């Protein structure tokens, strides 16, 4: 019973959401359980944060490599959470200040750092070794040129319309509208079929890994 009842719960929750589109009577019920979902997600986030805390606590406890940094992580977590919960999160609060001067610079610099690595990655990956890699490289260069004003700066004002296909701007748009749309669409369709079949397997009780081991 420890598995059957949760399975029934999953089935009912999912089916109500699907049937709601055909049975208007179910709309209120569906509306209600969606409210519950928000609350459950809130607890799920707490569980995640707690797991993070737990693993770092264990690192400190066992004095693993880099444990002093885990102390920093735990301190940061508590500081931000406590300041936010007790003194509020609106504009002008300590929380807002910490967001602006601590979290914002760190978050954005972490990703800004990738600018340098994207350069070395281009150096390492974009080699015309095979047809595959050559296509990748040429498309990337055209897009990079087409995206910035300097890419088309050499095109004179009176450029003939019949030769427009020679400008990076035009080429970039075609790559995006045709090749990129085709590739991304195939990915979208392929991935969505995966999601749809997994969802169906969950609802029908074929996929049960979410129930854990017995």
């Amino acid at each position, binding site marked *: 019973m420890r598995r059957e009842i949760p399975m029934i719960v999953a089935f009912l929750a999912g089916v109500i959401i699907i049937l709601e589109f055909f049975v208007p009577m179910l709309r209120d019920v569906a509306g209600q359980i969606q409210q519950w979902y928000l609350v459950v997600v809130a607890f799920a986030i707490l569980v995640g944060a707690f797991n993070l805390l737990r693993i770092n606590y264990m690192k400190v406890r066992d004095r693993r490599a880099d444990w002093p940094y885990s102390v920093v992580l735990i301190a940061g977590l508590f500081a931000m959470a406590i300041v936010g919960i007790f003194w509020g999160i609106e504009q002008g609060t300590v929380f807002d200040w910490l967001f602006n001067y601590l979290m914002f610079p760190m978050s954005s610099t*972490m990703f800004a*750092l990738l600018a340098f690595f994207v350069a070395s990655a281009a150096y390492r*990956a974009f080699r015309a070794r095979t047809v595959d890699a050559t296509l990748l490289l040429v498309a990337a260069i055209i897009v990079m040129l087409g995206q910035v004003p300097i890419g088309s700066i050499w095109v004179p004002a009176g450029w003939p319309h019949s030769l427009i296909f020679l400008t990076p701007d035009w080429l970039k748009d075609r790559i995006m509208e045709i090749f990129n749309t085709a590739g991304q669409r195939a990915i979208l369709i392929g991935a969505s079929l995966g999601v749809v079949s997994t969802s169906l397997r969950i609802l029908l009780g074929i996929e049960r890994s979410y129930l854990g081991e017995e």
Partner: protein
Amino acid sequence: MPRLFDATGEPKYGELSPERRDELLDKIARAVVDRRLTAPAIFFLESTKPLSFIGSQVMVFFDPLVQSIFNIRGYDDVRLALEERENVERLLATIERYDAERRQKRKERKKSKITQNGDASNRE
């Protein structure tokens, strides 16, 4: 000292054994090269190198959820592998090695075909 919440379910942490690590990186590299995704994979891995630790911590955060929903085998190991930054470079090197092997094989096959049939129609 009484321990917190670790009767049986203490999550894995620390380092992977070198054998397990190599096995994991090998498997990923093979999958990438077999699907001919070498160039995109190298670009992606090389360009996100500095974020591997943050990636591992995001995995820690979502671990209870993802694990309880999908029960992915090897999730913990990937997470642990990511905590060590050098492993990204190791994976890159493995992919590059397999890719070089693959190209070498193709070349040899092509050569033998040319000597047999006198043409190279099976071009890539």
